[in-house]
């Protein structure tokens, strides 16, 4: 049997009349990289916020490592081993890079059982792992966007998570930075054994790195499978291009 780390069952999240996430179900296998894609407003970030406990879903269950975490406060979910990076980077600007990562270490998986010294060591290791070692004592506000995104990852990793949610970790980066970040994400997955769900708009990147892909559209799951399967799914192409006939032509051309 496949080892499932996260299981979503019919998750629904509404904002007033708007259904942002509509009866979405899928499972994440331990150790995989899962891509979560969909056009703008498909509900990807909302779904991340439901998983991390920022939003309480109106319906459905979120099961993490066999435990029902639906509606748990966000800080307890973090402690159970889920970490997230933000789409719009949210570094603690008035803290150094190292201190930012220390917050992750202090309140992550070993929250309450880790001293300041040990937290500093974990933080330093992670800061070096993402390649910010030389900037450990710089204020977070002095970093470039790319470095801030790396800091988000270092901070999340310092929590020693089992599941890492990356919300558009590549957006706004130039091609070289994207390559570097992809390498880093792979290393996180392979060397640290962290399961990853990544929301991504940079399509070729996610197709490249993810083993499986889930596609959301208007809050509903419309497709799931390997990158090839998803790329050839007419419904997915329709969702992205908005026109069924155009989509069909697109599929035919690719098939040819």
């Amino acid at each position, binding site marked *: 049997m496949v080892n499932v780390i996260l299981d979503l069952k019919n998750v629904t999240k509404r904002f007033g009349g708007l259904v942002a996430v509509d009866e979405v179900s899928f499972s994440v296998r331990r150790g995989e990289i899962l891509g979560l894609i969909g056009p703008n407003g498909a509900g990807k970030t909302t779904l991340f916020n439901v998983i*991390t*406990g*920022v939003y309480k879903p109106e319906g459905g269950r979120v099961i993490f490592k066999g435990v029902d975490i639906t509606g748990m*406060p*966000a*800080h*307890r979910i*973090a*402690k159970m081993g889920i*970490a*997230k990076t*933000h789409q719009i980077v*949210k570094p*603690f*600007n*008035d*803290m*150094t890079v190292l*201190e930012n990562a*220390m*917050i*992750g270490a*202090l*309140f*992550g998986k070993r*929250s309450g059982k*880790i001293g*300041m*010294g040990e*937290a500093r060591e974990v933080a330093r290791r992670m800061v070096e792992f993402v390649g910010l070692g030389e900037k450990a*004592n710089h*204020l977070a506000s002095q970093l470039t966007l790319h470095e801030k995104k790396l800091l988000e990852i270092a*901070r*999340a990793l310092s*929590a020693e998570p089992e599941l890492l949610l990356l919300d558009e970790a590549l957006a706004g980066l130039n091609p070289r930075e994207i390559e570097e970040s992809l390498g880093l994400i792979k290393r996180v997955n392979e060397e640290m054994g962290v399961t990853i769900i990544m929301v991504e708009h940079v399509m070729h990147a996610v197709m490249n790195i993810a083993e499986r892909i889930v596609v959301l559209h208007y809050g509903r799951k419309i497709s799931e499978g390997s990158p090839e399967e998803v790329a050839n799914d007419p419904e997915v192409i329709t969702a992205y291009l908005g026109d069924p006939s155009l989509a069909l032509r697109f599929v035919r051309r690719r098939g040819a």
Partner: protein
Amino acid sequence: MSRAPGYLKSPTLLLIVVVVAYILGERLAGLMTLDALMLFMYFLGIAAALNIIMGFAGYVSFGHAVFLGIGAYTYILLVYFVPTMNSLQKMGAGLGVFAVAVVAGLAAAAVAATIGAVVLRLRGAFFAIATIGLDFAALYIVKGVVPTLNPEQFYGAQVILPSWAIVPKEDVFNAMLLTFLLVILTNYAVRRSGFGMGLLAIKEDEDAAEVLGVPTAKYKTIAFTLSAFFTGMLGAIFALNGGGVDEGIFHLGHSINMIVMIVIGGLGTVSGPIVGGIIYYWLYDLLLIHYPGLNLVILGIIVGLVVLFAPEGIIGILRKLTFQGVRLRELLE
């Protein structure tokens, strides 16, 4: 920064030692009156007390006068109405005063824990406005209720300690010194703890902190309660030294004093309220002597200039400087 010999390298600790040495020196030399020295400690103390919630967690409370008031009224009413409390406060050369002040502080802390659990859900200006509301609610309630407790003896909401409840000034001084040390060292301990790191994360970005695992609601309530506890103790000893209390203790101006000291010194550090408190006390004194009547006008202008040109406060500016290759930020916490 390596951690082991940190005591010697930490200017914050050095600052604390210097300030305490100064107080003790003045006490021995007897150049400053006991009252002036107590006012000095009271100023620095309330700034440090508010610092726990405002400096570290970033919640600007205009309602701390409420806790000063609760502490003051609890202390005064306790020794007024409860004979054991009155005998307790006269014991141990100030230790008794300290003990009763702890009870007063606990009363303030209890109210803070109850109110804090709900009010701390509000953020930024809404929190500030709510605490202004609490201050006025408390002011008007005390104005209404206290006179009815003992209409023959109390003048309005004013309670004056009768001669049998007066404590020697030396005892009050000792209790104040003890409380002052306690609040400053608590600041230092909080700043160096994981709890303090969590509070700083809340100040920077509360949502991000929560997702990273910081139990934000719990931490804010603890910080608010701790802050109220020390504020209540200081209010109690302040009132005892003044020989009584009236509703003026709830005046917004008291909260404002605390906020101004932290703004001048700088948020988020242990040295901020100490430096801000010293400058404020000094300015207060200086301006009062040279420009009586206009002293607070000038103070207002100074605060405005700080907000416009040095929003991080004095310690904030110092932290940005580099000294012989070492960034001062790493030294000043």
